């Protein structure tokens, strides 16, 4: 049956078709829809789904399930694999029970990420196979194949879609979900499950030996395709293969072409194209993973072959597209290149439309109160979430990785900074990677203020639940963790919860925290406006009365619901009724619509 599916939904379908028993993940663009789709699709199938607290946890849960005989997968974005790197590296030694898939979605061009690291390097680093789909159909097919491969080789397998695969849609051929009727049982085997040095040494040697088996198993995989034609050739991997195919078709070229979809790379196929051609262009996004292998093989097989790729023909940063690849091929063939269409008027007259905090977003109010209390000179380390978009408010001085706001703040204090330090991170980010930092700050006596921007959801990635919400990935009720009790337990001296929409009380709480001679935590609690709207919460909107003096204090607050027209403020239809602007207005000209 063919359906029009999002790449991530195609992966979810593949997981069900392969009979996965456990899927765990932490939300992160572009990976989040895999578990969301599974929650929609699972019905009565016996699949344990979870939003884990972070990616390390997710991978360990999946590994435990695999060792118990359930096919298991962990989903994450590329930077999530940094968090999960510890179990990831050693799992390659220990191996799997039932198939184990690490689904790691990369984001070339940093569409929604802090970096564009290439996870194929991680697969290479840990010596496990990596499947690199070019489109949703391949993503679905590789998901099913990945489990079989993992079981055959007794190693975890990485599936590495990129944004243009995870967030692409295509007609995809799917089958029905499969039930695997296997009794879950953990079989004790210390030599393979306990990574003592004496066990790890032979397991590492075994893993190295397996590399040849991996290559053999993947050489004939359907995603490695060779066509030998002209004496010039192209080797491309992942989605770059599609750009090359389209360019060859568009330019009507007689050219030899090897498309690669699996790692370790298929050396025999690379050898055959290298024997056949005199020049070869390697096309891949980000790192020269394939190119380095092509160079290594060429030294043995055909040292005279000219190899073109990174740095000159193909950029090492950003994402590729059809035109960039077509131009690289044109250049190799000595054909005219096509510059991208440029519309000078667009640059000249268009107002920028950057993403911004929503109308009525409580993060804006929290940051306003924070800055009122802490002042311009204070240092404001921040974190990963919607609130990073408030960089223009002057309360986002750093953003490094999940949870780093607290630890950077501590380091800034210990490094000698004497101004006030008030850091901020979201509730989900705090639970993901902030708790250890808070514990460390308490233990090592960092005099800082930590603000938890608690909107009771993981908003940026599409409103996934977390332990603070008391609901699981499948919508079941669960234990609801109190952030205040947690902060106390981790050693914070002062813990205060405020409603950021009550500006006066919030400013007061921040002043108290600033004066506190130890580690203080402010929890700014107000549910995300998008979630509230979906839940049917309705508040009366506000409007600007005749007392407006046009002072622009409310405009500077930056809410998209406030506009400036004919020297006066005006509140538009986007108003959610948070009422914060009414508290800011020095002329009390903003009033609730009765």
């Amino acid at each position, binding site marked *: 049956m063919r359906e*029009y599916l999002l790449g991530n939904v195609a992966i979810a379908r593949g997981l069900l078709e392969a009979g996965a028993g456990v899927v765990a993940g932490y939300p992160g663009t572009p990976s989040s829809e895999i578990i969301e789709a599974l929650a929609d699709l699972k019905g009565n199938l016996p699949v344990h789904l979870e939003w884990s607290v972070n990616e390390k946890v997710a991978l360990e849960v999946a590994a435990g399930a695999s060792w118990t005989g359930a096919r298991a997968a962990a989903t994450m974005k590329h930077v999530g694999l940094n968090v999960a790197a510890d179990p990831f590296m050693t799992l390659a030694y220990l191996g799997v029970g039932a198939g184990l898939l690490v689904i790691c979605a990369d984001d070339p061009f940093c569409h929604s990420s802090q970096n564009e690291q290439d996870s194929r390097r991680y697969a290479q680093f840990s010596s496990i196979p990596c499947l690199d789909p070019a489109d949703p159909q391949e993503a679905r097919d590789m998901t099913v194949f990945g489990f079989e491969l993992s079981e055959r080789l007794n190693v975890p397998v990485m599936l590495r879609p990129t944004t243009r695969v995870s967030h692409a849609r295509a007609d995809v051929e799917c089958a029905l979900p499969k039930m695997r009727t296997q009794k879950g049982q953990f079989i004790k085997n210390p030599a393979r499950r306990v990574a003592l040095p004496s066990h790890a040494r032979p397991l590492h040697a075994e893993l190295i030996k397996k590399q040849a088996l991996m290559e053999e198993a993947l050489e004939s995989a359907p995603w490695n395709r060779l066509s030998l034609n002209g004496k010039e050739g192209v080797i491309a991997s992942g989605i770059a293969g599609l750009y090359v195919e*389209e360019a060859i078709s568009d330019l009507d070229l007689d050219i030899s072409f090897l498309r690669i979809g699996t790692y370790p790379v298929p050396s025999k196929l690379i050898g055959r194209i290298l024997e056949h051609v005199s020049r070869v262009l390697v096309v891949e996004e980000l790192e020269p993973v394939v190119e380095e292998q092509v160079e290594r093989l060429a030294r043995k097989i055909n040292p005279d072959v000219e190899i073109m790729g990174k740095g000159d023909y193909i950029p090492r940063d950003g994402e590729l597209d059809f035109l960039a690849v077509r131009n690289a091929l044109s250049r190799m063939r000595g054909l005219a290149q096509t510059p991208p269409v440029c*519309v000078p008027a667009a640059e000249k*007259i268009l*107002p*920028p*439309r950057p993403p911004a905090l929503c109308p009525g977003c409580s993060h804006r109010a929290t940051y306003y109160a924070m800055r009122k209390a802490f002042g311009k000179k204070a240092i404001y380390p921040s974190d990963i979430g919607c609130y990073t978009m408030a960089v223009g408010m002057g309360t986002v001085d750093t953003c490094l990785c999940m949870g780093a706001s607290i630890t950077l703040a501590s380091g800034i204090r210990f490094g000698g900074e004497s101004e006030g330090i008030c850091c901020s991170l979201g509730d989900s980010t705090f639970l993901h990677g902030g708790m250890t930092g808070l514990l460390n700050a308490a233990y090592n006596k960092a005099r800082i203020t930590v603000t938890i921007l608690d909107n009771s959801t993981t908003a940026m990635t599409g409103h996934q639940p977390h332990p603070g919400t008391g609901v699981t990935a499948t919508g079941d009720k669960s234990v609801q963790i109190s952030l205040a009790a947690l902060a106390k337990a981790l050693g914070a001296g002062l813990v205060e919860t405020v409603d950021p929409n009550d500006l006066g009380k919030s400013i007061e709480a921040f002043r108290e925290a600033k004066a506190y001679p130890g580690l203080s935590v402010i929890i700014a609690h107000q549910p995300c406006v998008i979630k509230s709207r979906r839940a049917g919460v309705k508040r009366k909107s506000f409007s600007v009365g005749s007392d407006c003096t046009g002072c622009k204090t409310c405009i500077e607050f930056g809410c998209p619901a406030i506009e400036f027209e004919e020297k006066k403020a005006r509140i538009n239809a986007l108003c959610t009724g948070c009422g914060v602007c009414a508290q800011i207005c020095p002329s009390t000209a903003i009033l609730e619509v009765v």
Partner: protein
Amino acid sequence: MKTSECDVVIVGVGGQGVILISDVIGRAAVKAGKPVRGAETHGMAQRGGSVINHTRIGCSFSPMVASGKADVLLALEPAEALRFSHFLAPHGVALVNTLPVHPITVTTGKAIYPPLEEILLPIKSLCRFLRPIDATALAKQAGTAQAMNVVMLGALSKYIPLSEDLLLQALAEVVSPKFLQANAKAFLLGKAEVESDS
């Protein structure tokens, strides 16, 4: 050699319903037995930012339309039409909803929203035909301003190789039954609006 039967670029502002249009086209294409590819904007950019969706009907290559290759640019907002006008092919058609949505840079007085004529003029010179449409007014006429995107889909239907019947079937799959009647009406109003265009 032509690598796609029809390349459509759909643009607008987060929340206007860009993805729904592509979803309907994709489903209709599958019903027609045609290969189809799409690429969407998710994540950070959605929060009030510019949104772009590529949809390629009768195509088995990558999901992205190349610069200068779009047969149709469907814009739910005029400034976004100009922002993404570099996708238009010289033989292409631009269908543009005329109601502006002011970005935060304009509402806070940091930038100016140019007059409609100034926005449309450079687009005209890039393509065969530009058609401004007051889709929001037509959607209100159909019963709900929210159906503006479906009015634009109706107008688009003239220029894509998919039958009205299949598009309406696909539309029924993605909108809630409660709003189906208003949406079907919106589709027909959009289609009628461009009927006599060349």
